[in-house]
Structure formats: structure tokens, C-alpha cells
């Protein structure tokens, strides 16, 4: 091989090019003499063995494999057949790292056909082997998952035959895996036609969700299930069949039935309680009515006889006795008012609201007209603004204005110039009606007592009253599904606001009416 000086420039270049290619290869390449000694290596071989080129050349090639005999056997085969393909071996790196390779090798000859040695190329298959192992493991893992699933899982061929099942399917059907596979999937349902339809839907739509079926066990017991199924395809996109997962909903169904049953029971109980409550309310109203009704008779008698006593013997009685008689008279008169107001409150409570579109301006004006007689000799300025038309019971609304306005008249009595105003303003898109006066007002810290029955914020010597008027107003407003509140300042005046119609307090005739029945 000492002819190098005779090589032409092109030849040298070609040889260098070939050498570069060899060195650039990622596959370990090696040439071996007929005696089995390494004659040449490339960079990849140096890398895979961890040995320098100089130490490799001239050594026995089989030294670098985990199985030298197998390596030699491969080498022998090359001479025998002229080549080997994908001959598996494992190269041992100097630091003991192992690399799985597949060898492709062939003999190479001189121009005269004499065998000069073996040319061997190794392909590193560590990664591939690792990937294969991984795949195998993944598949095993997937299988375990399938088997571990409590949901019966099944794959069905395009012909409708079961191709695979998991343990849960065996449990649900009571049929062994061997007998299930190959049989018609619809055989195991209480409604085979419906099962068949579901199967067809999967093909039509690609999948079905929560398809209700019932699996029949060989013992006769039935499991309610919801099926989720989808087509499964090969990597190439060819439909192989259907994968179907069933979810046992027997428990859920029972739970649902239980919930339904409990709901029915609850509803029944609510109906009963409501009826009881209504009955109790009626009873209470009847009681209120009859108490106030029956109180009237003895009151009348006390009033009558004390009056007769005054009239017939008054002049003969000492001044003290006359005074006592007067107090009796006054007491009965006041109690008479109380009883009448209570009766009225009870009547309002029982009164069925008859809704009618009503202009509140005329209702307010009627109430004002009635009150004018009480204002004789007083300076009262009435400011009646324009009020809305609303759906209400006109008779009850008249009472609302009567009570609110008579309060205004009463509590402005100390004023030399009383101003009583009725108007409306908008609040959250709904009309709010107000009644305002410049009277004595009250302290807002007592505002919660304002609408309670018999609650009074003034001394009877200053302002007469029974403490039922505002309670009655509130009940009427509530019966209309509205709300009433007040703003006031001591000695400055008071304003009462109310809304009517559906509000957050509920329906006019149900909740509100009950809420109002407190007497």
C-alpha cells in the first residue's frame, strides 16, 4: 500500500471524501481482517467502545462484545454466506455501559476477488429496544387498567361480535371471557333491540353518551347502566369497531328514586303544614274577632250604666265620685276604640284582595276630603301630587290613606301652619308613594316599633290613638305584596313610604298575607 505518492489529486480527494463519510456516520463501522483483528474503525466505534483508535486496531474484534462467542459466530456467518443482516449483539463500553446493536456485515475483496476482510456496520438499537419495552409495558399497564375498571368495558367488531372484554363485564354478565368473545353483544341486555340501536348510533354519530341499558346476569339479576361508546380506529383511520364503557347506575337510580320519594314526602308534608298553618291562622282570626266582638257587650254595659249613674244621680254625688265616673266613661270609650280598631285589623286580615287598576290620586283626595272636617279651625296646607295608577284593592287603599293622613293631621296639631304632602318618587324603577308631614315626628331608634300592634311612640295625653292604625296599614301593604317604611326626625316631621305590587317579599296573597297575620 505504499503507492500513495502516485495518487492523483482527484483520487486523493475522493479517498478523503469517502473517509469523511465514514467518520461522519453515527453507526459504529469497523473492518476486520480474516484473522479477526480490527483493521480500521471510525469515530462512532471509538465512542461506543470508549477506546482510542490506536488501541482498537490490531485487537480481536470479539473482545468488545458482551457475548464474544456470538460475535465470532456472526463473523463466521459472514464468511459462509458473504453477509449477515440485523445480527443482534451488545457492545460493552470501557466504562461497562452496554449498547444494543444490530450488525450488518459483508466481506470485502480486492480487485481480483480475494477476500480482504469483513466490513461491519452496527446500528445502535438501544433507543428502539427501550421504546419497544416501553410500548409493551404501556400496553400491559393499559390492560391492567382495563381489568381494574369496575365499569364493564367491551370492544365490539363491525359485525357486532364482542372482540374483547374486561373482568367487570364477566362479573356483570356472569359469562366467562372465552364465551363472551365472539358472541353477539346485544345478547346480554334486557332490550337487545335498544342495544342494537345504540350500537348503530355510534356508527352514525361517532359516539354515544349516557345511553341507558340494563345488563342481564345469567342469574336473572339486572344491572342498570349508562353506556358511553365511541368508534375505535387503526392508526390509518380505518374503523375497527366500537369501544363501549358501561357505568353501573343501579345505586344512582335507587338514590334518585329515594330522592324522589323523599321529595314527594316533603311536598306532602309541606301541603299538610300549610293547611295546618292556614287553619291555625283562620282560628286565630276567628278568635281575635270573637274576643273583640264579645268584649263589646260588657263594655257597652259599663258605658251605659255609668252614664245612667251620672245622669240620674250625678248632681247628688261628690265631685270625686263624679270624676271617677268620668274616668270610667273615658276608659270604656278608649277600650271601645281599641276593640273597633282590632276588629278592623282582623277584618283587613281576612279581607280577600280584589285587585283593580286604581288611580291613587283620587283615593288620596277622597281621604283628604273626609279629614277636612277634623281640621276645622286649623291652618293645614294640603299638597297632593300626581300619584300612579296601580293594581290594588281600592277599599283597602282608601284605608291606607285614611290612616296615614289622619296620623299626619294628628301629629301636626301643634303646628300653626301644618303642611301635609302626598306624592310619589321612583325607586329602583318602581313607584314609591309617600305621605309627609311637618309634625312632631319621632326618634328613628323606635322605628322598628312603628308598625307593631298597640305600639305607640307618643303619650296618650299628647296624642290620642290605639296603636293599631299603622299595623293595619302595614298589613294592607303586605297583602298587596308591597313594603312600608318611615323616615322621621324628632320635632321635624315624618315621611311614610310604601310600594305596592310584586316585590321580593313574595306573592300578594300568600306569603305576604301570612306574614301580616300576627295578631
Amino acid at each position, binding site marked *: 500500500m505504499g503507492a500513495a505518492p502516485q495518487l492523483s489529486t482527484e483520487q486523493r480527494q475522493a479517498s478523503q471524501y469517502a473517509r469523511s463519510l465514514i467518520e461522519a456516520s453515527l453507526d459504529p463501522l469497523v473492518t476486520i481482517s480474516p484473522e479477526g483483528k480490527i483493521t480500521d474503525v471510525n469515530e462512532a466505534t471509538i465512542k461506543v467502545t470508549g477506546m482510542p483508535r490506536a488501541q482498537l486496531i490490531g485487537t480481536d474484534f470479539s473482545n468488545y462484545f458482551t457475548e464474544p462467542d456470538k460475535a465470532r459466530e456472526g463473523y463466521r456467518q459472514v464468511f459462509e454466506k458473504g453477509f449477515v443482516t440485523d445480527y443482534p449483539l451488545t457492545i460493552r463500553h470501557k466504562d461497562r455501559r452496554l449498547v444494543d446493536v444490530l450488525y450488518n456485515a459483508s466481506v470485502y475483496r480486492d480487485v481480483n476477488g480475494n477476500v480482504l476482510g469483513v466490513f461491519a456496520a452496527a446500528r445502535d438499537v438501544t433507543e428502539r429496544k427501550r421504546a419497544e419495552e416501553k410500548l409493551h409495558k404501556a400496553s400491559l399497564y393499559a390492560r391492567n387498567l382495563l381489568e381494574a375498571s369496575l365499569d364493564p368495558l367491551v370492544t365490539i367488531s363491525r359485525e357486532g361480535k364482542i372482540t374483547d372484554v374486561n373482568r367487570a363485564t364477566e362479573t356483570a354478565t356472569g359469562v366467562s371471557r372465552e364465551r363472551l368473545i365472539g358472541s353477539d353483544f346485544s345478547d346480554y341486555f334486557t332490550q337487545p333491540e335498544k342495544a342494537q340501536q345504540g350500537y348503530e348510533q355510534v356508527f352514525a354519530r361517532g359516539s354515544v353518551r349516557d345511553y341507558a341499558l340494563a345488563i342481564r346476569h345469567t342469574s336473572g339479576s339486572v344491572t342498570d347502566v349508562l353506556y358511553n361508546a365511541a368508534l375505535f380506529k387503526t392508526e390509518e383511520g380505518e374503523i375497527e369497531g366500537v369501544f363501549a364503557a358501561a357505568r353501573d347506575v343501579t345505586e344512582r337510580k335507587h338514590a334518585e328514586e329515594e330522592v324522589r320519594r323523599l321529595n314527594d314526602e316533603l311536598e306532602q308534608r309541606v301541603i299538610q303544614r300549610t293547611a295546618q298553618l292556614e287553619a291555625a291562622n283562620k282560628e286565630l282570626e276567628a278568635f281575635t274577632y270573637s274576643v273583640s*266582638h264579645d268584649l263589646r257587650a260588657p263594655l*257597652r254595659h259599663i*258605658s251605659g250604666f255609668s252614664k245612667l249613674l251620672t245622669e240620674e244621680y250625678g248632681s247628688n254625688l261628690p265631685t270625686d265620685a263624679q270624676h271617677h265616673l268620668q274616668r270610667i266613661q273615658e276608659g*270604656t270609650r278608649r*277600650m271601645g276604640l281599641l*276593640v273597633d280598631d282590632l*276588629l278592623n285589623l282582623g277584618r283587613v286580615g281576612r279581607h280577600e284582595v280584589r285587585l283593580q287598576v286604581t288611580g291613587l290620586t283620587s283615593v288620596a283626595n277622597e281621604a283628604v276630603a273626609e279629614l277636612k272636617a277634623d281640621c276645622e279651625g286649623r291652618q293645614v296646607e294640603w299638597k297632593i301630587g300626581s300619584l300612579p295608577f296601580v293594581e290594588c284593592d281600592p277599599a283597602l287603599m282608601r284605608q291606607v290613606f285614611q290612616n296615614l293622613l289622619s296620623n299626619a293631621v294628628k301629629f301636626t296639631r301643634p303646628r300653626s301652619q301644618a303642611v301635609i304632602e302626598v306624592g310619589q318618587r321612583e325607586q329602583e324603577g318602581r313607584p314609591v308613594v309617600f305621605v309627609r308631614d311637618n309634625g312632631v315626628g319621632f326618634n328613628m331608634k323606635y322605628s322598628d316599633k312603628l308598625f307593631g300592634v298597640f305600639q305607640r311612640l307618643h303619650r296618650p295625653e299628647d296624642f290620642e290613638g290605639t296603636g293599631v292604625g299603622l299595623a293595619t296599614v302595614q298589613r294592607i301593604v303586605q297583602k298587596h305584596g308591597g313594603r312600608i317604611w318611615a323616615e322621621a326626625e324628632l320635632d321635624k316631621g315624618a315621611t311614610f313610604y310604601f310600594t305596592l305590587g310584586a316585590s321580593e317579599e313574595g306573592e300578594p296573597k300568600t306569603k305576604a298575607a301570612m306574614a301580616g297575620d300576627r295578631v
Partner: protein
Amino acid sequence: MTGQVEILLVEDNPDDVELTLHALRKENLANSIQVARDGEEALEFLFCNGTHAGRCFERPPRLILLDLKLPKVDGMEVLKRVKADERTKIIPVVILTSSKEERDLVNGYNLGANSYIQKPVDFDQFRDTVKAVGLYWLVTNQPPEPNGFGHPAVQVTAAK
């Protein structure tokens, strides 16, 4: 009772009886008042049977003041019987009661009551009311002639 009974007062409560009588007497409105303490007694008086079997049917009261809550036979029943009978139905019946119940009002008028008055608690008002009722029915109101009373056919037969 000697003279003509002007008013039949049907009232179970003795206090109410006394106060009503007082009011009526004081105004000199009633020369003769008959008191019935329950519904049964009222009916016996009006139809001349039972304890009033000896009474002459030809002399009916000119006004009935009727309470509603009564022992034995209640006021509504008395009203019904009075207005159902040809011989008594023209007698004015004024319901004088503590009740202001809508149901009682409607029932009363439906059964033919001529007036419905709730007894005021205040005695002055009570007296004024009773006085007004008496004045109206015994003085202002024009009743048919006494001999026109009762069933005409019966009347004719009796005259012959």
C-alpha cells in the same frame, strides 16, 4: 200586658235589655214593650203558642228588635220564620247586634231584615241609635192599616 204591644225586643242579655228599655222609655217611644229572652220565646209570642198560647193573633207588634246570638233558636232562624210566614212577614225586623260580620249582614238582608244595626259601645251613641230606630219605624214609617194585616183570604173568612 194590657195594651197593644208596640215593640218586641228579642234579647238574651239582661244588661242589654235594661239599657234598651231605658233608652226607649226615656224617649217615650214605646208604650208597650214585650221582651223575649230567646228565639223560642219570640216565636211563641209572635205565633201565639206555647207560653203565649192565649194571645190574640190579631194584635202583632209594630216592630221587632232582634239580637242574633240567642239561646235555643238563634236570631237568623227567628228572622227566617217571621219572614216566611204570610201573617208575620210585614212586621219590620231590625237586627240589633254586636256583630258586624259581613256574613251576618248579607244573611240578614237576604232573609228580609228591614235594617241592620251594630250596637255602639258608647251609651250616648247607643241611646241615639235606639231612639232613631224607634222614631223611624213607629213614627216616620207608614205601615199598612192594622185591619189589612194578615192573609186577606183568612181575614175575609173570619169577618163572615
